[in-house]
């Protein structure tokens, strides 16, 4: 991670903290693409986690729920995420590691072309609440 990325990183850490504390989400996390080649996308800050295994994950473009957000620039939500098989296109490793049953993820974009540089994800455990479009809006608002 380059030096110039530190402020960006801090900014999204703060987004995660604000969102986590002002909502009833069980888990909030942000993944950002590194500035340096090979430009890996990793989770940089999470709250509500039960273990540290999230640090091992590298998000693949187009693979998994968060990977699809990165690839398409579209938000996604799923309320039966743990039912999905490892080979499923929407399989979400962080949901598996953190036992999240309902997840929502929105893209983090960057000017001037709105290219996707990361993902903001929130989740519930034990089907506490269903995710819907309002959750997508809520997450997007926190990014602006």
């Amino acid at each position: 991670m380059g030096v110039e990325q530190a402020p960006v990183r801090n900014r999204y850490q703060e987004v995660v903290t604000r969102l986590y504390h002002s909502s009833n989400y069980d888990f909030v996390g942000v993944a950002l693409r590194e500035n340096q080649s090979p430009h890996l996308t990793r989770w940089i800050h999470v709250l509500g986690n039960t273990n540290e295994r999230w640090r091992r994950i590298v998000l693949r473009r187009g693979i998994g729920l968060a990977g699809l957000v990165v690839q398409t620039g579209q938000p996604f939500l799923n309320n039966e995420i743990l039912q999905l098989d490892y080979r499923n296109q929407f399989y979400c490793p962080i949901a598996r590691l953190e036992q999240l049953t309902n997840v929502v993820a929105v893209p983090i974009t960057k000017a001037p072309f709105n290219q996707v540089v990361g993902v903001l994800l929130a989740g519930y455990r034990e089907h506490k609440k269903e995710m819907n479009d309002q959750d997508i809006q809520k997450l997007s608002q926190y990014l602006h």
Partner: protein
Amino acid sequence: MLETNKWIQKFFDRSSDALLIFQEDELVLSNQLARELLDQLDLKLTYLLQVARNKIAQQQNVVDNCFNCAILDHMPNHIIPLTLTTKTGQKLHYSITYQVLDEENEVLAIELKSQEALHRANELAQQKQLNQYVNRAYEDERKRISRDLHDSIAQGLYSVRMGIQRIENEKLSSDELQAIAEMVETQLDDTLAEVKGMALEIRPSVLDSFGLVAALKALTKRLQENSGVGFTVINQVNGTHLSDDVKSVLYRVAQEAISNALRHANPTEITIMLVTHPNFISLEVIDDGDGFEINSNKDDYNGHSMGLMNMNERIKALNGTFNIDSALGEGTTVMVRFPITKSNHQKEETINE
């Protein structure tokens, strides 16, 4: 009518089961196979008859608690397993089926089915199922590769081309140029990673150039990044000679076992142990996931994985052994062993890590 009788007679004679019909204690009718069999066997007909009669007596025994038992009534037509010895001492396994044709005149039909034939038929059926699975797996793999090529590689290259076109055709500020260059570079990095990952899944070239341990490390590194599950490769095989076939199978077993664990077992850690013993090499894939109840029947992995059954076939072909140990809540261990000799005449490779 006469014609039909001839057919029935022919059918009776050529049946693949030995057929005998008795009236009282006399053999009235027997087919070709039955006569051949009796010729081979050191067997008194009265013995066969007695076995069948005892069975009937048993089933009609009022003292027996099983009389009129609902389960017995559902049992398929009174099958009795029987081992017969030929004159040369060879043991043949048969099942006897009998039917009372005429109770008043004490007419009894006995059918002798060779269990070897039944067993063989079962084996063939299993083989057929396995072949079908292999074919389907082969097609599925091609489908997946094709989809990956189209969805991620082609898509990635397409957006790179779009980026370069914009640089060529649009008047862009230096900030915008910078951003597009970054986008293109990122996209190419992603695509490159994807190609490498696909190559690793299809057939790792490291397996040929740097050996099994390097290939397993590359595979587990990628899977750890994809899943967040922790992987440890323990290697104690320095200087062991392995044939290419054995290396490939060991790699595939590890791949299949890991894939099963990730799909079904919900593990947090997976350990792969490769150890050389005096006469054999062993590979163990140990996960700390949910585990499952192994069916007592060793030939059937609880319907858990045709993939592993297929592996078992490949392992057997190379004189290896294959075993799964698991219990609910206790994780699963998949273990493979191959015999090793120092004087391996096949193309050899020395593992050095």
